[in-house]
């Protein structure tokens, strides 16, 4: 199995000389370690940003005691939780209980193999990159469900059921909005998607696709206002109610890792990836990803949570039809318009977005309220 095509253009990343002992495998190992390190560091950065930002938005200061401006707070948190006793309830399904955090965390790390941090600066430039992302990202749901089931806790079970319902529903709008981007690109490779945004980022060409992807993605990674599976005011901590110590850390890693991967994905698909003037490419990428994260945290600190039936209704009645319409419109545009006619697509697509969203929000009511029992 070839993971890295040796001929792939690795851009500005330093590459090992070909006569290094072991060659390919050393290369592979080195870059895997680098990427995992980058991901872990970025998760810590995100945790720090989230805590400070939520603090400011809640008219308080946020953590500022550990190191300058409290930048070591995530490290301190991680250490604290790692040193905690791993409490294991008596009535759990032990094997699945132990396996669940691993099953959840591994796919999240795997996804970052295909994220282009710079031009070609990725572990593997798969020609099916985005398909790989969609496929792998769903696996960590299995881990979540395993955790909810194996904990033998009713709150966890409710959370696990919500996860399945939400992920199954939201996978579709996500994939459909990705598909309309792919129509513009004509390639599944993540790097090609960024390369195709040479003239203009896809957020301008695909405003509706962006909105759908953003909303559905928030539900996929279960961030507010769709954070039903760890709805602390309803079901305590959701699927990881019974987890502590290092297993809890892994779930925490999944949560923030997924959020970082989501912001990376949005950056790649809609915001022009590593493109940008003056600054180095990787910095542009990180800045954009952090900006997306800023918006996510902003929503988190602002919005109330939707109910499960409203969540499902939003997916099936709202996002899915709109994503389908968007896909059809994009397909027609790609077929009918000549290459590079952005000036037609931008106004048309923005108008379509506004009209469709207004129309749909008038036509459909979210949720169905009370049930006769």
């Amino acid at each position, binding site marked *: 199995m070839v993971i890295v095509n040796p001929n792939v253009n690795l851009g500005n990343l330093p590459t090992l000389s070909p006569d290094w002992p072991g060659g390919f495998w050393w290369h592979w190992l080195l870059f895997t370690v680098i990427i995992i390190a980058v991901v872990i560091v970025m998760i810590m950065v995100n945790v720090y940003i989230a805590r400070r930002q939520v603090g400011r938005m809640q008219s308080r200061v946020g953590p500022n005691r550990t190191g300058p401006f409290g930048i070591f707070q995530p490290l301190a948190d991680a250490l604290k939780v790692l040193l905690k006793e791993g409490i294991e309830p008596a009535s759990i399904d032990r094997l699945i209980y132990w396996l669940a955090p691993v099953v959840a965390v591994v796919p999240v790390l795997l996804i970052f193999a295909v994220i282009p941090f710079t031009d070609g600066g990725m572990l593997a430039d798969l020609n099916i990159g985005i398909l790989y992302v969609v496929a792998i990202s769903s696996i960590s749901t299995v881990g979540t469900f395993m955790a909810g089931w194996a904990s033998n806790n009713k709150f966890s079970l*409710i959370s696990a059921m919500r996860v399945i319902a939400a992920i199954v529903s939201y996978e579709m709008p996500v994939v459909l909005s990705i598909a309309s981007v792919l129509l513009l690109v004509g390639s599944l490779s993540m790097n090609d998607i960024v390369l195709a945004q040479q003239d203009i980022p896809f957020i301008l060409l695909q405003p509706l696709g962006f909105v759908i992807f953003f909303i559905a993605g928030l539900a996929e990674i279960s961030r*507010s206002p769709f954070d039903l599976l760890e709805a602390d*005011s309803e079901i305590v901590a959701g699927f990881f109610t019974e987890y502590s110590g290092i297993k809890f850390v892994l779930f925490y890693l999944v949560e923030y890792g997924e959020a970082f991967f989501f912001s990376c994905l949005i950056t790649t698909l809609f915001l022009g990836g590593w493109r940008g003037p003056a600054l180095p490419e990787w910095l542009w990428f990180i800045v954009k990803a952090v900006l997306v994260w800023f918006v996510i945290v902003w929503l988190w600190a602002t*919005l*109330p*949570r*939707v109910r499960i*039936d409203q969540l499902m209704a939003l997916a099936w009645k709202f996002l899915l039809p709109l994503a389908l319409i968007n896909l059809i419109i994009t397909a027609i545009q790609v077929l009918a318009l000549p290459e590079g006619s952005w000036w037609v697509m931008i106004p048309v697509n923005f108008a379509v977005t506004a009209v469709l969203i207004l129309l749909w929000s008038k036509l459909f009511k979210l949720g169905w309220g*009370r049930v006769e*029992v």
Partner: protein
Amino acid sequence: MAIRTEPFVLNMGPVHPSTHGVYRMRATLDGEVVVDLEPVIGYLHRGVEKLAEERTYTGVIPLTDRLDYISSMSNNLAYVMAVEKLAGIKVPERAEYLRVIMAELQRICNHLIAVGSFFNDCGAYFTPFLHMYREREKIIDLFEMVSGQRLTYNYMRVGGVSQDIPEEFLPALDRFLAQMPRCIDEYDLFLKENEILLARSKGVGILTREKAINCSITGPVLRATGVKWDLRKADPYSVYDRFEFDIPTGSAGDCYDRYRVRIAEMRQSLRIIEQALKQLPSGPVRVEVPHLVRPPVGEAYAHIESPKGELAFYLVSDNSIAPYRCHIRPTSLLNLSALRDMAIGWKIADLIIIFGSIDICLGEVDR
């Protein structure tokens, strides 16, 4: 073939983030839908009514602080009013005004917590809650000035209040009154028209007018159903008949209306405080009452409109220094009585916000 299913019983509480203390709900669920609900109370029972029989009349005041600990001032007021009625004590004017100011500040304070935690139950991650705590902090600072305490004030006394307000109190109160309307506007700006909040709370947990009256529900929960019932108007106590204010009512009796009524009541409380400050007379704040009050044989019932509803104390005296019997009409407990009917058929998430919108305090429920 029918699949055999069994009811899913979910124990919410006594240790749960959203039961506002140690309330416990045994919810029977069908999927996410609540099909039955059994409240279990008593985890915070301290026997306040019995304890009161062992204490002097003045010594009971600290106990009342610990009933509804969110609004201690109102509890103090209801209790001392009952004792004064029992012993026939006339309270000086200035004390009456101070009591009204404190009670209305307490109402704002309580509603800030009620609305804030309601939003929290809706899932707005602590932001409205902490913004409202910012203002509550100012009220608590005011209370600290007059009583030295920040939660259990123990400020009212039989025959007045424990001490006159310090000189820094009035400027601080003026500053607060100037800021507060803007802050309330800010809360409205924040979430009043929010689509998710409307979807979550409009039409959810409807309590009909008849049901509310039959369950003897009072306070904002009753007024949200459209009943214009407020003891400050219906049976004016203290000096409430001297102020102009409206009774905000809702119409639908759902969670959203309860939240709106509370916001409107905060504005009315500000109005009352402003008027009270204008009319505030000088003079003593306390009449001379013997250290051990020994009321004549008899009984007295005094009720006030506490922030959560009608709070009343029923005292029986046998001419000793301690009440022979002290009965409390706990607002929170009675307001809870319709919870089951309001919650059945709704989902767990709704159950939480219906419960949150009633605004109870377990200290008062369990006594």
